[in-house]
């Protein structure tokens, strides 16, 4: 997200789901869309059916490859090289949209200089993709307009994730694919309300609406509205919080609806950190792995038992409606937090309903300024929606970028933090499966879904399997520098030679026991997508 803020001024999907099918070219990189965002994959397939070209860049032979015009099988962690290589071809062949660059962008010359390092021979060596294919993909992307880029965690969960994102943004600006229908740069958000949680300021550096905590005028506005003294110092990220808990500087934690032992990198470290806390409160709908470690567990109402809103990946604020009474003595999360605050004597938490909270949100968050529950009855609204007569914004950066000029950023290729070596010869990458979701607290409880996929598998290429004497279905032990787990081997051509793959959903074979907690320096996202492992028969 930080990458798009730097280049465009706003870190969200630039276009809408409904215009995906009008694209003339789609570049899907670092997204296994049919598994993780199946309904968006339908729109991509619709576009292909209407004649769009589809470029899939993925180390794995994912389902989308079947519909692809061209498939670039680059090594995990080499996205910057691949995208810069394509940019270089577009420049050299005179396919860049020079009018767009001149009129709407800045810092282009610096960017152009940084392209020098990405001649096709170098790019081929780094990525493993033949130069001819890179050229072909660059031609397809640059000559079929409008062209839309889609990416997900495969781009962001790297130590150079911000660079990866910037590389996609550079490519879109270079070809003038911004601020028009069916184009743009479109990050697909993993969880139902990641967009909303970010929008509403559940981040250590910004208030709701991405208003910086370090900005005095903004702090002043919130101090007056909330009648409180606020800090101008950005706070700790989740990963830093766990480090703090581990080394004793953090003593108490209040966790609402998250399950960090499965979602944090280096899961063993996260569990140790939670155990060291003096006081842990967990609020959830199930007794999760995190809740087991808590001092107090609070029962939350499920999404079907309360009112509220979620903001989806295309910035659309949509209603969640109460269909049932909360089970047992459970309560909606907002109410629980308000009641804790009131017990502590903190002012400003006497909300009666979520719609009243939305009124306060609208009054302090410019992008949500025109959003009311009354309007949402007519259907979702895409932010920015600053006033009550504003129709919402399906496409960002039309005519002008949020930050004014689109900012080209020069890039260099940086290898991943941990690469395979003699001791740990295989590269592990992680992802999601259609039948389960995130840490599995919900989907692992659905018998039908468990029936279809009930245990963790590790995908391994036939040649690696043969070398290791592993047969399809064998139980194998996967070990990294941080720990080891067991899973069943799925010997498949989907996995490239030297690369193995696991899903993140299974507590008993938690892939994140293995993954590397090395962070992207800007976005503080851990490198889930590349770590070194070894595999042996269990």
């Amino acid at each position, binding site marked *: 997200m930080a990458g798009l803020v730097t280049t465009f001024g706003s870190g969200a999907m630039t276009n809408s789901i409904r215009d995906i099918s009008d694209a003339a070219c789609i570049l899907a990189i670092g997204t296994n869309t049919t598994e993780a965002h199946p309904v968006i994959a339908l729109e991509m397939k619709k576009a292909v059916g209407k004649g769009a070209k589809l470029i899939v860049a993925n180390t794995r032979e994912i389902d989308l490859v079947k519909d692809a015009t061209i498939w670039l099988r680059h090594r995990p962690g080499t996205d910057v090289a691949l995208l810069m290589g394509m940019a270089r071809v577009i420049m050299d062949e005179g396919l860049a949209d020079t009018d767009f660059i001149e009129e709407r962008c800045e810092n282009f010359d610096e960017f152009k200089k940084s392209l020098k390092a990405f001649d096709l021979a170098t790019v081929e060596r780094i990525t493993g993709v033949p130069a001819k294919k890179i050229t072909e993909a660059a031609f397809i992307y640059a000559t079929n307009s409008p062209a839309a880029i889609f990416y997900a965690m495969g781009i962001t969960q790297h130590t150079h994730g911000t660079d990866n994102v910037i590389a996609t943004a550079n490519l879109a600006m270079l070809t003038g694919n911004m601020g028009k229908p069916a184009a743009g740069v479109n990050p697909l958000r993993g969880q139902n309300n990641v967009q909303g949680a970010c929008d509403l300021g*559940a981040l250590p550096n910004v208030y709701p609406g991405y208003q910086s905590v370090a900005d005095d005028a903004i702090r002043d506005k919130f101090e007056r509205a909330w009648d409180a003294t606020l800090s101008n110092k950005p*706070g700790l990220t989740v990963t830093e919080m766990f480090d703090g808990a581990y080394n004793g500087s953090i003593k108490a934690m209040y966790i609402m609806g998250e399950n960090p032992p499965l979602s944090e990198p280096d899961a063993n470290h996260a569990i140790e950190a939670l155990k060291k806390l003096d006081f842990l409160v967990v609020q959830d709908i199930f007794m999760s792995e995190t809740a087991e470690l808590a001092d107090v567990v609070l029962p939350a109402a499920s999404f079907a038992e309360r009112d509220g809103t979620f903001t989806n990946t295309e910035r659309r604020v949509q209603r969640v409606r109460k269909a049932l009474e909360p089970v047992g003595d459970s309560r909606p999360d907002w109410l629980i937090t308000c009641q804790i605050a009131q017990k502590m004597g903190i002012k400003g938490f006497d909300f009666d309903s979520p719609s009243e909270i939305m009124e306060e949100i609208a009054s302090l968050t410019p992008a949500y300024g025109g959003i009311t529950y009354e309007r949402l009855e007519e259907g979702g609204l895409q932010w920015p929606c600053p006033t009550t007569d504003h129709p919402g914004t399906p496409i960002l950066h039309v005519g002008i970028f949020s930050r004014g000029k689109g900012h080209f950023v020069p890039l260099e290729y940086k290898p991943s933090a941990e690469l395979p070596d003699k001791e740990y010869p295989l590269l592990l990458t992680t992802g999601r499966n259609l039948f389960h979701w995130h840490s599995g607290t919900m989907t692992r409880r659905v018998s039908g879904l468990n029936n279809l996929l009930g245990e963790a598998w590790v995908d391994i290429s036939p040649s690696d399997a043969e070398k290791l004497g592993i047969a399809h279905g064998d139980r194998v032990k996967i070990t990294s520098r941080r720990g080891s787990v067991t899973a069943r081997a799925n010997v498949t051509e989907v996995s490239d030679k030297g690369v193995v793959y696991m899903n993140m959903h299974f507590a008993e074979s938690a892939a994140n026991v293995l993954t590397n907690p090395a962070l992207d320096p800007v976005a503080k996202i851990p490198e889930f997508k590349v770590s070194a492992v070894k595999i042996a028969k269990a």
Partner: protein
Amino acid sequence: MGEITLTIDGQEIEVDTGVTVLGAAQQAGIYIPTLCYHPDLTPYGACRLCLVEIENMRGLPASCATPATNGMVVRTKTPQLQEFRRGVLELMLSEHPHPCLTCWRRERCGPFDICLRSVDITQRCVTCPKNGTCELQEVVDYIGIENVELPSTLRGLPIDRENPFFERDYNLCILCGRCVRVCQEVRGVGAIAFTSRGSETLPGTAFGHALRDSDCRYCGACVDVCPTGALIERRRKYEGLPDTRVTTTCPYCGVGCQLELELKDGHIMEVLPLRDNDVNHGQACVKGRFGITEVVHHPDRLTTPLIKKNGKFEGATWDEALELIASKLSGFKKNEVVVISSAKCTNEDNYVVQKFTRTGFGHNNVDHCARL
């Protein structure tokens, strides 16, 4: 898009070019019976029920596959058409259980009533999960069939229950092809197709393999478009009609599909993807379609606050739990307390939690797992 004017049953109608005769009639509120037609699928013209008479056009064209043109004069319910439709429908019913469909007492019967005509329990409408929402019933009622003269050839097939979510009872299939087409056209999967020929024709997987050995992704789109009881979600099979419906947003991935929860007696009966919106256009995935009810009604749901005493959780009242949390959290130095919010919770939950952290503790140590 230009406008064109045509006349249907004496009514003048203006529509955009490209609209079919059926579409024009629907816009004007004129009912034409259909079974293979579905608004999300390309016209198929297989069921022959939507046939109409059009002046200066030969034969009886299928209105679902005929584009409306300027000056067209269309008739939708002449005696000739109704007679033709009755014949087509009779053919269809000769392979579908129909004693109840042609019985004038159908709507008066309950599932436990004794049938005076001794209709087999497997052939009754009242025991069919689709009773009351069946499109075949609707069409029979419109055309009016009192008797099926043709010999009845029931298929006598076993019900296919091998997948965990829905049942396939091809004794009720009328070969409209919607399931086959939605899987191919909308989902781009093509896990099923028509198999065999002639009177043996049925939708199925390649070589009759189980769905789990096909490309099926269990999205449920086939179940949603089936006009009869042939495809039905197992969990709602004996539930009847819902009491109410509530529109909400799917709690799984970031696409934000709009879903309709069908409710009965305080529980979720079925979850259906909503058609009329800009996000999912009537589609969902296996998690949203089949993976919600069991989570919401799971026996493991936490129902009361729990406080750990001597390493074991004990039930507590809300007052006890809130009191304990408030006094404990107040006892630490402010910068020793951190808060983790959630990308699974609502906007309002997130707003309240960050406000709580910032105003209550005077720092910004609040984050969530967006990056993970």
